[in-house]
């Protein structure tokens, strides 16, 4: 760290922080607080899932058997791998390896796209089958009472999650553009760290969504 160069002000240090260490600490705490709000946001939807599973466990069990397991499993592997690549990207920029970081970010973004494509294909199948939420439901294969609410919960949770995938992807693209323009180095990389944290959260939500929707 450049703590010995106290007379050369760090260009990234804001005027109201004493040291860059304090600023980095503050920024990380802010990010974790934001992640906390995202946890509470999804908690409401997980609540919806558990409540309606409680009411309609037969329909939920049956309907989950009709989801495309391989699509879901593939998406899980895709997201886990993208989590790895973004963690490696962060490690790379910490070591000043800009090109490696950029490549890894590109890979992560590609994974995000792949996830969305697979999800999109799944959704289109559902539209064709009539496996739709609430009053739109007309899927003949699952007739247990409450099946329509299964798909309500399915579309709401995966929809909100997909929205976060898109947001996360946008953040990663923005970070990539900054990496390519040389904004980051081994002495300044905190935004990459924060973007990575957001991406990991997206992965975390899916880690729970996958078994709850596809497996049980």
């Amino acid at each position, binding site marked *: 760290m450049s703590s010995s160069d106290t007379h050369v002000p760090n260009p990234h240090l804001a005027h109201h922080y004493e040291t860059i260490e304090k600023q980095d600490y503050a920024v990380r705490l802010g990010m974790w607080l934001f992640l906390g709000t995202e946890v509470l946001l999804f908690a409401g939807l997980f609540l919806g899932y558990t409540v309606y599973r*409680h009411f309609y466990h037969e329909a939920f069990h049956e309907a989950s058997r009709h989801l495309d*397991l391989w699509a879901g499993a593939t998406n899980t592997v895709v997201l886990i791998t993208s989590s790895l690549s973004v*963690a490696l990207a962060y490690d790379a920029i910490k*070591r000043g390896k800009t090109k490696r970081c950029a490549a890894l970010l590109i890979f992560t973004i590609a994974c995000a796209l792949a996830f969305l494509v697979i999800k999109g294909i799944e959704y289109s199948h559902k539209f064709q089958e009539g496996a739709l939420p609430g009053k739109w439901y007309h899927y003949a294969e699952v007739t247990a009472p409450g099946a329509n609410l299964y798909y309500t919960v399915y579309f709401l949770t995966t929809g909100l999650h997909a929205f976060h995938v898109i947001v996360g992807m946008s953040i990663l693209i923005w970070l990539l553009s900054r990496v390519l323009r040389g904004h980051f180095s*081994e002495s300044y990389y905190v935004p990459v760290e924060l973007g990575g944290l957001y991406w990991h959260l997206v992965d975390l939500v899916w880690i729970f969504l996958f078994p709850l929707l596809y497996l049980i």
Partner: protein
Amino acid sequence: MAHETSDSPAAKDEHHPHGVGRYWLVWALLLVFTATTVITGRMDLGGANIFIALLIATIKATLVVLFFMHMTEAPGANRLVFVVSLVFSIVLMIGVFGDLWTRNPMSLPSGAPTTEAPER
């Protein structure tokens, strides 16, 4: 790929307390657990299915949070924030389920007709 500074994935110094090896290991574990949950998910284990699925999901999530998100090295405040948000998510669920589990069965919106005689 440019070889700028020490390239070894196991390179350690004060700013890089660990190498990248642990990321790959966590990734491999996550894949193993994913395969496990897919297999056990499609087996019929009765009531244990949900428990096992959630247990595996929790283990995977813990790995991601601890290692990918560097929670092992994070200051206490950040850890507290995350844990507290989880705790209150659970509070929300417990509060609602306290209601659902103790309601009169006839006042649940399940579509199936009740075959129990009403109380009283």
